[in-house]
């Protein structure tokens, strides 16, 4: 084979590669759009009246995840199944965001941490690498860390809305999450950087809990969220 033939063959391979990437980018854009819609929907809980409509918003968000599942289905067909990590970078960001959104919905519904298997199910993908398009563990953990900062914000806003019990529950949750993350030996990569931010979320929530306790506001929290003094 002559040198020019060899390079022509290589060029062909690289060209195909580019086509695949182009296809993936298109689907990922659609996924990003859906993710934004879900986020906008869920952002509503931070506003005063939003607190009463949490179940309804969660239900709506769950419907949107149906769209996510079909889009994921189409993403799976765009590249050879055994080359997940070759194109991983393209959907990494949006997948982390979707994990966060799913975790947020599950938290709002049941105040528990969504498991990796459950997220995979919500997104219509696999939890295990062996079985196809899967959820990488680092992406899962990144998404969970985003949830932590969102909850820190939610703690602040729920106080503003007169819900004094929620911050206490969030605090318990975040503390457990924090001790969970402490178990991990992280490398000096992006996940580690995001984990470093967790302590600020913990601190923020502790401050909120402190403010409530010092004013005795958490007393009525156990009674109810009626709001009267």
């Amino acid at each position, binding site marked *: *084979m002559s*040198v020019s033939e*060899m390079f022509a063959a*290589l060029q062909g391979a*690289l060209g195909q590669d580019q086509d695949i990437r182009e296809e993936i980018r298109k689907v990922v854009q659609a996924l990003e759009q859906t993710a934004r819609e879900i986020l906008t929907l869920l952002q509503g809980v931070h506003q005063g009246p939003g607190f009463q409509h949490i179940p309804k918003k969660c239900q709506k968000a769950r419907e949107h995840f149906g769209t996510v599942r079909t889009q994921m289905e189409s993403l799976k067909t765009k590249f050879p199944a055994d080359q997940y990590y070759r194109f991983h970078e393209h959907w990494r960001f949006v997948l982390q965001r979707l994990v966060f959104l799913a975790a947020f919905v599950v938290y709002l519904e049941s105040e528990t941490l969504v498991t990796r298997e459950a997220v995979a199910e919500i997104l219509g993908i696999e939890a295990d690498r062996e079985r196809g398009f899967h959820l990488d563990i680092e992406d899962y953990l990144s998404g969970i860390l985003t949830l932590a900062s969102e909850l820190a914000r939610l703690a602040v806003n729920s106080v503003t809305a007169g819900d004094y*019990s929620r911050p206490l529950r969030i605090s318990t949750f975040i503390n457990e999450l924090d001790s969970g993350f402490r*178990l991990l030996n992280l490398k000096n990569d992006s996940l580690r950087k995001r984990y470093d931010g967790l302590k600020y979320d913990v601190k923020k929530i502790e401050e909120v809990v402190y403010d409530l306790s010092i004013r005795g506001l958490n007393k009525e929290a*156990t009674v109810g969220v009626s709001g009267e003094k």
Partner: protein
Amino acid sequence: SGGFRKRKHDNFPHGQRREEKENVNPPSALMTSFKSFQLELDTRHDKYERLVKLSRDITIESKRTIFLLHRFTSAPNGEEILNESEVKLDAVRRKIKQVAQELIGEDMYQFHRAISPGLQEYVEAVSFQYFIKTRSLISVEEINKQLIFTAEDREETTNMTSNSHDKQPHTWSLKVTPVDYLLGVADLTGELMRLCISSVGNGDIDTPFELSQFLRQIYDGFTFIGNTGPYEVSKKLYTLKQSLAKVENACYTLKVRGSEIPKHMLADVFSTKTELIDQEEGLP
């Protein structure tokens, strides 16, 4: 303050109290899953580190092979050097076999960053040797053909692959990706440029012309690929151009002054030139 703490404690929803003090022993579901995450991440990082180490060994041995091959032209015992380089490359391939074993059942691209530098250096070494032997460019297929490994001793492999496929013939392979190949070939041109200059120094006036032709073919190939390839490839194109220019200038000097200078003095003419080139090479 004791009273305060008690009160605060009471306010936590029942059943969800802080599990830090007495309830540590029965771990919550969350902690159990994070323990398994710890295991998974540690396993992954360990494998990555092992691959990085293998990649470094591959790089070092390949570099040594290249140095050895540079002695080829200047030494009379050419056959011996080629044989020695083959032995060295076999050693490198054994390392690559270890890499392939690490990657059994894994997605190669997940760990690609760990092994890519080593593979590129290997491509460089192997293609350099191939060029010296045959005066042509080795293809990716040819390289990959040498990276199909079969089990030599049974025990070792049954341990490695017992879980997946026991009855099948024990072969596994590692494929050099087109990009790794291209980057390796781009590095090869730098070696060829050095070979060209040193062969002039040895009074060999045919090799430079052969090399300039060969380099031009490769350069044409790279320009054909252009920016279809990833960023690193186009970055190498610039260095490639410089190497080609040096070789072409050497040929030019040979042509112009070769007729004037007696053959045994050619080395002196180029020794000053070589120094210049080496200095330029030292720059980043």
